[in-house]
């Protein structure tokens, strides 16, 4: 266990270093930020002065080393746009993204696992057909379209919920539902197929031959085993959502990391881009680590290897 943790921690640090390095070089080819910040018709001297103040006049390798030395201290420099430490700008947006991701994940898991389980246990019924059709549509529907439709129905037509904004629980409903639909659809399909696989296994027949109550058979001998693959997908989706769901946050004006990242890219705010990518990568790595640990707790055969 200790060796496993040490190895995975090493791998995680390497992954984060890779991401941080990649994003550094990619931002450098995005464009020249100084041209965006100086007034039209500025002199070359003015541009050079701005580049100097951003540290962009140094050779690339020195910029990189300088950057790495600061990154390990959690310092990504000051945002060109906000004039404050970039990491603070990003971390301020993290709660909004985390709230949206957690709500959507919780909603999507409950909905997806329940409907997937019903579809599997009632295979061949009308219920299964309906659930699987809705799930397929849910996965195929573009998130921005679903978001806009929800705004049209529930905000514009019915006036039940606000079309956007942040701060009150009502603001959370539409963006969370938009994301949850996608999550639930993916989880429902996987839950159904895993349960169908497990139903074919001999040990389920053994459990029934023991005279166990149907609920015991379902929870301990079917759902418990189906949890193993579903956990992996939940981890993948969770990482995706925590990185900030760009489209949903943009459609609903949700002040999260996804929207911030897009804005930072548009304004070539290098420090913020780098800080945002760093935070997102770290979160994904942490979630993967958690999923690996959970996976081992759920499946003793993996623990043995």
């Amino acid at each position, binding site marked *: 266990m200790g060796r496993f943790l040490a190895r995975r921690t090493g791998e995680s640090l390497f992954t984060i270093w890779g991401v941080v390095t990649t994003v550094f070089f990619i931002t450098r080819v995005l464009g020249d930020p100084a041209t965006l910040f100086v007034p039209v018709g500025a002199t070359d001297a003015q541009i050079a002065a701005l580049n100097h103040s951003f540290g962009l006049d140094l050779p690339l390798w020195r910029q990189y080393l300088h950057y790495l030395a600061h990154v390990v201290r959690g310092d990504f420099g000051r945002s060109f746009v906000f004039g404050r430490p970039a990491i603070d700008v990003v971390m301020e947006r993290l709660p909004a993204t985390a709230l949206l991701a957690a709500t959507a994940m919780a909603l999507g898991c409950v909905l997806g696992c329940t409907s997937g389980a019903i579809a599997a246990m009632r295979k061949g019924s009308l219920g299964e057909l309906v659930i699987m059709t809705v799930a397929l549509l849910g996965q195929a529907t573009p998130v921005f379209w679903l978001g806009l439709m929800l705004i049209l129905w529930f905000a514009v037509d019915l006036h039940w919920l606000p079309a956007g904004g942040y701060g009150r629980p009502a603001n959370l409903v539409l963006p969370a539902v938009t994301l949850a639909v996608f999550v639930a659809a993916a989880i429902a399909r996987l839950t159904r197929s895993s349960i169908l696989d497990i139903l074919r296994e001999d040990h389920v*027949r053994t459990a029934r031959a023991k005279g*166990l109550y*149907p609920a015991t058979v379902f929870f301990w001998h079917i759902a418990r085993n189906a949890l193993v693959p579903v956990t992996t997908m939940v981890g993948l989706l969770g990482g995706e959502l925590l990185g900030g769901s760009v489209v949903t946050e943009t459609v609903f004006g949700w002040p999260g990391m996804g929207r911030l990242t897009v804005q930072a890219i548009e304004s070539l705010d290098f420090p913020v881009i780098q800080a945002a990518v760093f935070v997102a990568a770290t979160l994904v790595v942490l979630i993967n680590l958690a999923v690996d640990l959970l996976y081992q707790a759920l499946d003793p055969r993996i623990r043995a290897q």
Partner: protein
Amino acid sequence: MVEPVLDIRNLTVVFDTPAGTLHAVNDLSYTLMPGETLGIVGESGSGKSVHVLTMLGLLPCPPARIVSGEVLFRGRDLLALSERELCDIRGAEIGMVFQDPMSSLNPVLTIGRQLREVIQRHAGLDHAQASARAVELLGLVGIPDPAARLAQYPHQLSGGMRQRVMIAIGLACDPTLLIADEATTALDVTVQAQVIDLIRDLKNRLGTTIIWITHDMGVVAELADTIQVMYAGRIMERGPIAPVFHQPRSAYSWSLLRSLPSMARHRRLYQIPGSPPNMIHPPPGDPFAPRNPFATPRCHRDVPPLRQVADSVPGHQVAAWYDLPAAVAAHPEIADA
């Protein structure tokens, strides 16, 4: 008069498949007395598993459909019970041991949990008492260091040990009837011999009534009191071990015995000609007739009933129109082939 433990009457089970109705069990009747060990043999697809799964309500319906019959277990018709009532019997009064102990145990639950859950379900014991009983059971089936096994998972045990765990689960609630379906097929010869010794020992100590399903005539000879040879969902022959092995009356059991290495002695191993019966369009008469060198015209026409062979051998029954000893004597060229 002693009541039979199990009395199956005219059980017929079919599967509705896309290709047509598959006749898996056809008008099957037999009884099982307390303490008796019944060995059921027959080729793959002869309805051995389907008929026991039917009586326990473990068959998926659909595609399976019980057309007719009664299964009286200690006087109660299992087929007429509700799923709830059947649940109370399964694992408690009737224990099951399945083939392939790797896939028949849940890979993500400990051995202890898989034993305790059946004990707690039926015996109403608390966790500690159930654990104690689980340790006792593992000891009973000859697993060394039983207390330490409770925390282990199936993949940490060898195949033979896993099969012993399956047997312990089957015996957990002191069942009246233990059904083992190919319980030793997946094991190598040495382990198989150990498991058979174990069952023989348990049967003598606990007096459990046993149905032992297998492909292996040798195992039946060692373990069973009564042998029942099945083909195409029917009983071809049934009787005490000695007369059936020494004087078989059905051409199918005769063929099975002739294809046993130990029985063939100096002759060549017998190969049953032809292919297994088509269960969707079964032949009209005796299902084995198309592969039977001794078949008479009547065999191809009418289904033979199961009848007593001779008054001198009680319990020896056969379903055949021909007289096998006479037919073998009349055709030595077939018998020696």
